């Protein structure tokens, strides 16, 4: 990597580039904050208690909670007791969405959370470790009058994590337990207009099914989906960013292939970073508008995973290549110790994701957290991934520390060096420090905005306008990492001022010595070259001896 652009650029130009990037950054934040609505919407639903009047039904019937063909409903279970209705004949029906609304494929995904309202009764308490078994069916239709088509049908078990905060006395009968939220359903694409959920809680005394689950008063659901407006803004952003990154990537790689020497490791890694960024950017989600691709959610996770692991590897390799300890690296295998944890960690998360969202492709009600073994397995995966992350950050910190130690070591000996050698090291140091600064800035921004978006209620009122903090966070951070990758590819591409003279590194060093003054000095540097390091070190060594 002879003379990257960043070194050959005048401060003025660098500042201009920086300001342009900052402007784009501000724009990205503004798009999310002012244009887009909040990223997701949560809609609460209360299940309607329908009565299935036929005792043993042969074919499947769907129960509508409201509308023209609404079911026979009961207000409370007191009526059910009076009418001697069996548990198996009570159907909890929820229609998503609410009346007069329809879902759209712009909503991208839909997850549903389950909550029970269980009243405390002295003689009907929730037993320890009680499990609810839910016989659930999901159906869809695309018009308001048609037949329902079954989408999924499953027997699901969920653990009731409820506690009663006050004393369990007769006086407190009728007060509700506080129960944890239960993940219930996840659909990776919302390609139908109307969805219907029918749930039953069958009782089987012999098999201990749904025994000791307390007095259920109501079943509540919360459905979460992405807002259509946010999806549009997001797609627009992706569609705009894809060509930008793609063009700079092609330009970057052309620069590298134009050089006489084969590309070094760092250059390859930067390219890989660009590729993984493009991979995230490519707006394949456009297809989800017209196709029923339920795997989009999983695919999105995989894409993000690849990008994150690439970014982490890039930082490690970048540090390693700037160590300045004269060891020959430039091979990927040198970094196995540092990259290993990344690969292993992301692999763990991948397996976990496949277990959760992968299985959800076939059964949307599946949740790895629902079963005891699944929870342990999931926790194991997450903990291993966490350990890997810690290990990685230890390595990274150690490496950064090493670089800084070497830098300070070199600093003291810089004046004594020959010009060529000094320029080489100054270039290295500048390049490293620049990236370090930018990376830290980006990471800090991510963390700060993440905290702001978590702490805040989701929107700020700013004069007349409402600023959607959450949306601003997503578009802003997404834009920021894009700009980061863009800037790296642009600034760390080989400078066109040099690649013509690559043939003789000797000339390279002597040629530009005092060409111009100030920042415009053409710092010709080498990191580790396949062809020339030994030569140049010999040369500079000689020069130093002289």
């Amino acid at each position: 990597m002879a003379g990257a652009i960043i070194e050959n650029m005048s401060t003025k130009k660098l500042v201009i580039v920086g300001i342009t990037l900052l402007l784009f950054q501000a724009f990205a934040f503004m798009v999310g904050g002012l244009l887009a609505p909040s990223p997701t919407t949560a809609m609460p639903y209360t299940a309607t208690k329908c009565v299935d009047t036929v005792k043993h039904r042969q074919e499947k019937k769907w129960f509508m909670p409201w509308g023209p063909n609404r079911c026979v409903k009961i207000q409370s279970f007191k009526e059910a007791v009076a009418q001697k209705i069996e548990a198996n004949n009570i159907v909890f029906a929820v229609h998503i969405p609410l009346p007069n609304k329809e879902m759209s494929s712009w909503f991208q995904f839909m997850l549903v959370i389950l909550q029970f309202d269980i009243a405390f009764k002295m003689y009907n308490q929730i037993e320890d470790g009680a499990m609810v078994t839910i016989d659930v069916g999901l159906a869809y239709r695309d018009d308001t009058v048609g037949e329902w088509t079954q989408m999924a049908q499953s027997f699901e078990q969920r653990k009731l994590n409820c506690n009663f905060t006050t004393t369990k006395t007769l006086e407190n009968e009728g007060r509700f337990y506080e129960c944890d939220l239960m993940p219930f359903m996840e659909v990776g694409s919302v390609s139908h207009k109307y969805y219907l959920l029918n749930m039953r809680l069958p009782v089987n005394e012999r098999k201990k099914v749904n025994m000791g689950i307390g007095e259920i008063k109501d079943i509540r659901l919360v459905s979460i989906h992405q807002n259509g407006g946010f999806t549009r803004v997001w797609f627009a952003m992706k569609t705009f960013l894809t060509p930008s990154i793609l063009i700079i990537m092609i330009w970057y790689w052309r620069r590298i292939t134009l050089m006489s020497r084969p590309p070094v490791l760092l250059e390859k890694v930067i390219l890989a970073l660009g590729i993984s960024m493009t991979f995230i950017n490519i707006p394949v989600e456009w297809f989800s508008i017209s196709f029923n691709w339920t795997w989009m959610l999983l695919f999105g996770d995989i894409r993000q995973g690849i990008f994150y692991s690439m970014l982490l590897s890039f930082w490690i390799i970048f540090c390693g290549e700037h160590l300045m300890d004269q060891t020959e690296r430039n091979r990927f295998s040198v970094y196995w110790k540092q990259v290993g944890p990344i690969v292993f960690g992301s692999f763990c998360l991948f397996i976990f994701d496949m277990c959760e969202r992968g299985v959800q492709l076939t059964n949307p009600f599946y949740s790895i957290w629902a079963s005891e073994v699944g929870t342990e397995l999931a926790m194991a995966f997450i903990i291993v991934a966490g350990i890997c992350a810690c290990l990685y950050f230890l390595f990274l910190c150690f490496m950064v520390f090493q670089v800084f130690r070497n830098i300070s070591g070199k600093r003291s000996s810089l004046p004594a060096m020959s010009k060529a050698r000094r320029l080489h090291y100054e270039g290295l140091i500048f390049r490293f420090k620049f990236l370090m600064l930018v990376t830290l800035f980006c990471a800090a921004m991510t963390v700060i905005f993440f905290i702001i978006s978590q702490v805040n209620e989701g929107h700020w009122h700013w004069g007349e306008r409402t600023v959607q903090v959450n949306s601003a966070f997503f578009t802003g951070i997404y834009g920021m990492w894009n700009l980061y990758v863009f800037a790296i590819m642009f600034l760390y591409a080989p400078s066109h001022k040099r690649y013509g003279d690559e043939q003789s590194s000797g000339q390279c060093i002597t040629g530009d010595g005092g060409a111009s003054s100030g920042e415009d000095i053409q710092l010709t540097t080498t990191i580790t070259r396949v062809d020339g390091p030994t030569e140049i070190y010999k040369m500079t060594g000689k020069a130093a001896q002289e």
Partner: protein
Amino acid sequence: MLDGHLLLGWCSIILLVLVLSTPGPSAAYFGLTGNEPLTILPLNSVPEETTGRGHYKLCDRLKLEKKQRRMCRRDPGVAETLREAITMSVMECQYQFRFERWNCTLEGRHRANILKRGFKETAFLYAVSSAGLTHALAKACSAGRMERCTCDEAPDLENRKAWQWGGCGDNLKYANKFVKDFLGKRSNKDLRARIDMHNTNVGMKVIKAGVETTCKCHGVSGSCTVQTCWRQLLPFHEIGKQLKQRYESSVKVGSSTNEATGESEISTGRGQQPQQQPPTPGVSDHIPRTMDLLHIEDSPSFCRPSKYSSGTAARKCYKDKNCDAICCGRGHNTQSREVTRPCQCQVRWCCYVECKQCTQREEVYTCKG
């Protein structure tokens, strides 16, 4: 004798004030505070199929004011919800006051008389009515019982667009707006009407203050990079409990009529300095901006049969718990009888209870007349 005269004089003044200030029949109250006799409402029945204009009948039966009737008729869901709100409020009121002298008896006459005064009980009735209505509406929204709920401000097409673009506001916001609309915001110079309005608002505010925000993380692999929060109402039992607490700490707003000018001065209880009336008389509200329930008069004892209650004679009470308080020192009768009641019940989820029949000797305490 002199005292008697004074008392008589005061009485007549109060009576005069009451007569002058009693709001007309147009009072837009509802639920426990409404004009309708609650007994005509089948509290626990299955709603008949509300096809077409079936709900009109229900709206008419509720004896609503003109504007309220219009709002009721707009949507079959509203009528049903209104009825449910009344049921809920009544049940909660009776549950919260089951150990008290005033046990929230709502037979027409007593209730109407309490509503004509400014007792603590009146305050509770207003608060629990509005709270019940807000709660029932929010719940009805989430059950899809109402045709128009959130996103309902704009015409249909724009609604759809708003929903597609950025979802809708939450049910609570809608419920609050509806209740405010429904119960009307009337600027009333009359102190009692303003107090009633205040207490109505307290009911809504208690609901609002009891909202819990719950969040769910659903980022990459379920991490918290993306999380969605929503607001949840407390169970109505909790609301009732809070309102009961507010009832107990209700603040008395004294109204001493200035005979010279006929303007009323208002002072809050709790030993504070009486607030001086600002120069512009009787226009702005002097009701303290608190979340406390307010009352004007001290409650009657509810011991003996009166306009406000049928007294506590023959009320069942619990020994060592409330017999002394309820029976007003008249003592209680102890009756020992044999009761057969279900025991050792095996309750299965929904609708099936298997019990043994146990016969116990039980002491029943009732207040002496």
